């Protein structure tokens, strides 16, 4: 081992100083437990992880790693959005042409756009499924740690889901084709069904009374600056809270349910386990959760799994993007309404409910847009927001799939999720011209063309 001498001639071993190692990449391939711990504090990219991770929290089948997957998709969206920022022109006259250029003339352009679009769609799905998982495992419940505020992290999560939907929706308009124009028409018309303030809300969204240049620049700035900034900020806070809350709820359930074998207090404590001090005194008493067979070194066991999920997501998506091309319809035309005009797929369950709650009695029409577009989603978001405070199930129900004590609420939640999914599927695959029902294998009437 090299032993550099200082100018005064004093020999200093580089290996003895904590956090300093002569070997490159030692922090991702630690040789000892000590190095493994050092890696967390001395490596910028790793320092937000705990030194040791609760092993059951890392089970593939507990969290399905949906949160990590969402974060990977966000990363991919930022990476693929970068080049698109240089290529896309947010002007009514040139937006469509710039997408045509990206599709046909830019090196890797079509692939980058495909990656961006698919990652956006998948992110909506991944974030939604992440929320479903957290609800079903009651992971917003606080456990045994000090200062846990999991219900607030749930709230941040709900806000992030809404931001994800808005990001996807604002991105939808940018190509300025028929699909974009009319999906945004449908979406913003729903907003205008709010009593009294509806038309004003719509005008605020559009920057006018019709979708035009003011709308495009609004959606563009929201899409590339405001919403990603907000989502990025909330993401950091979300991760910080996970650390402050002592990791996943699974860790608490392990500590609660396991036989707590008290071990002798250790004299010194190099790292706070899982980032939180358990108990009230600074003298930490280790319990089973810290036993070697229940925890693993975060480096490399946690980091390797994170690499698998993040790189795996990127790998599969970049592969799919080669074969699934992004559609680009005719240039936006305010005079020609495509039939059917559909909202983005993640709003189709709402569009479906809007249709089904529109009742015609004689010449009298009850417009469903208010019920399906405002009341129902508003109610659902409100319920999601307050649910951690309503849920009075015992502590033991947290961090476990389908506990008996939460059977009723889980069933009700799954029923709502089921309805949303079924309505989305109907809207996506079974609605044809004039919003008539067609089976997926049934052919739609032939769409005429000019020539």
């Amino acid at each position, binding site marked *: 081992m090299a032993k550099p001498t200082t100018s005064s001639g004093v020999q200093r071993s580089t290996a003895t100083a904590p956090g300093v190692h002569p070997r490159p990449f030692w922090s991702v391939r630690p040789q000892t437990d000590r190095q493994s711990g050092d890696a967390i504090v001395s490596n910028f990219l790793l320092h937000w992880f705990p030194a040791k991770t609760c092993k059951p929290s890392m089970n593939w089948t507990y969290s399905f790693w949906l949160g990590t997957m969402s974060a990977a998709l966000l990363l991919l969206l930022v990476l693929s959005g970068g080049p698109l920022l240089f290529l896309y022109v947010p002007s009514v006259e040139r937006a469509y042409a710039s997408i045509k250029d990206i599709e*046909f003339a830019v090196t*890797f352009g079509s692939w980058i756009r495909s990656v961006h679009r698919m990652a956006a769609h998948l992110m909506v799905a991944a974030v939604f499924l992440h929320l479903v998982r957290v609800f079903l495992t009651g992971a917003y419940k606080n456990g045994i740690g000090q200062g846990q505020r999991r219900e607030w992290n749930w709230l941040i999560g709900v806000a992030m889901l809404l931001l994800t939907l808005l990001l996807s929706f604002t991105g939808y308009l940018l190509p300025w*084709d028929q699909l974009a124009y009319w999906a945004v028409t449908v979406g913003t018309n729903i907003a205008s069904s709010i009593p009294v303030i509806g038309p004003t809300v719509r005008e605020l969204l559009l920057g006018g009374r019709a979708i035009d240049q003011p709308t495009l620049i609004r959606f563009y700035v929201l899409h590339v600056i405001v919403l990603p900034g907000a989502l990025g900020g909330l993401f950091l806070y979300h991760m910080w809270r996970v650390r402050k809350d002592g990791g996943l709820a699974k860790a608490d359930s392990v500590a609660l349910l396991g036989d707590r074998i008290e071990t002798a207090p250790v004299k010194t404590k190099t790292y706070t386990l899982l980032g939180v001090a358990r108990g009230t005194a600074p003298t930490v008493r280790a319990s089973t959760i810290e036993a070697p067979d229940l925890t693993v*070194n975060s480096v490399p066991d946690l980091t390797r799994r994170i690499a698998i999920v993040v790189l795996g997501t990127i790998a599969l998506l970049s*592969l799919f993007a080669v074969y699934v091309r992004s559609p680009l319809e005719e240039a936006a035309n305010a005079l020609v309404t495509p039939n059917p005009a559909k909202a983005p797929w993640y709003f189709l369950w709402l569009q479906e409910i809007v249709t089904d709650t529109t009742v015609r009695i004689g010449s009298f029409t009850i417009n469903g847009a208010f019920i399906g577009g405002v009341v129902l989603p508003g109610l659902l978001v409100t319920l999601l927001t307050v649910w951690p405070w309503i849920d009075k199930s015992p502590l033991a129900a947290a961090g476990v799939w389908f506990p008996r004590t939460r059977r009723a609420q889980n069933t009700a939640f799954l029923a709502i999720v089921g309805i949303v999914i079924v309505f989305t599927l109907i809207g996506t695959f079974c609605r044809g011209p004039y919003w008539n029902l067609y089976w997926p294998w049934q052919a739609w009437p032939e769409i005429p063309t*000019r*020539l």
Partner: protein
Amino acid sequence: MEQRTTSPYPRLDKPVLAVVGLVLVLGAVLFTINDREHEWRYYQYQFRRVVADKLGAEKARTVPSGLQQIWVPSLGHADRCVTCHQAVAWNGFEAAEEPYRTHSAEPLKNHPIEKFGCSSCHGGQGWAVDVGPAHGPVEHWEEPLLGRQLGTEYSLVDNKAALMQMNCNTCHRYDRETKSADFINLAKAIVNARGCRACHVINSRGGTIGPDLTFVGDKAPEQYEYGRLSGQKTAFAWHVAHLKDPRALVADTVMPNFNLTTKEAQALAILILSWRKSPVPAAMVPGTPRTDPQTADERAAEEAMKAGPGAWFVKTGCFVCHSIAALGVKSPAQIGPDLSTAVDDVQSRFGRTVDDFLASPTGTMSVVLSRQIVLTPAEKAIAVQKLREAFAEYQKQKAAVKTVAARSH
């Protein structure tokens, strides 16, 4: 030495990560190959060989490679057709097969490629660089190539390439007759002979019994009633069938059956679909006056000045910038000083006589007199004489005004 605690983890993680790495590499290779693979690479390679065979290797090296396009800013078109159709501007490939054929010279005389591009006449998707999306018909691009192939599908009579005339008429809309646009000319003749304007407004003139046809070409294809139309469900097919027998498609129509032949109906359908609100740059529209003519008043004023005492200054062109108020000459621009007092003025400004100044002018006048109004020494002498006359006239008028003023006191 201290060891790391053996991980209690399934040993599967490492191979899984390795597989993920392999998929990443595979993905990178696949999307790179996918991005590189284009038909135009083959066509460019072939064209270089064709040129080498015909004109020698030296010439072949000048064939450009890579994506080529004609960018027409006034139309917002980027036509990448020339990426494959490289022979368009090469002489000597008139008889070759597409895409290596020279463009026929006649239409290009008045429609240079760099000003008009390709797709403004031929249709098709200029943005695209692959055979399918460029020529169409392809989903979500309503302007397929208006070529022989599409004409054959519609069984056009006599001239299978006539569909392209639809685009001729975008600019030639108000022409009675357009050179070599036989179908359009036939259709326009029918419109006049059969009196379509009795019922329809066409180009803002006509009756109101039928719908206004001025921009009927913009009508969305979905907005026609296809219930009784068999065969192709397109706006063009609808119009052909409707023109031949209106009542067969629209039961309660009052439009009579004109017993048109198939060719006549096809020609009319081409004309009708050409009636669109295409924004065309003024410079491309034939017959548009390119000048901004003077009004009758302006012309009369100029004629009067030419007949008056300051005629010489008007004919020579001095009056473009200078008024000569004393001689009744009023400059429309009045950029320079009034020349009535030039004799005096030049002396006080430049310290030189007018003769001297005109002989070797400085400043703006040196530019004007060397480029725009070039005077011979003899003409300069006339100029000096005229300026003196103007000054004399000026002094006379001034004295007259003074006398009038004195009298009124």
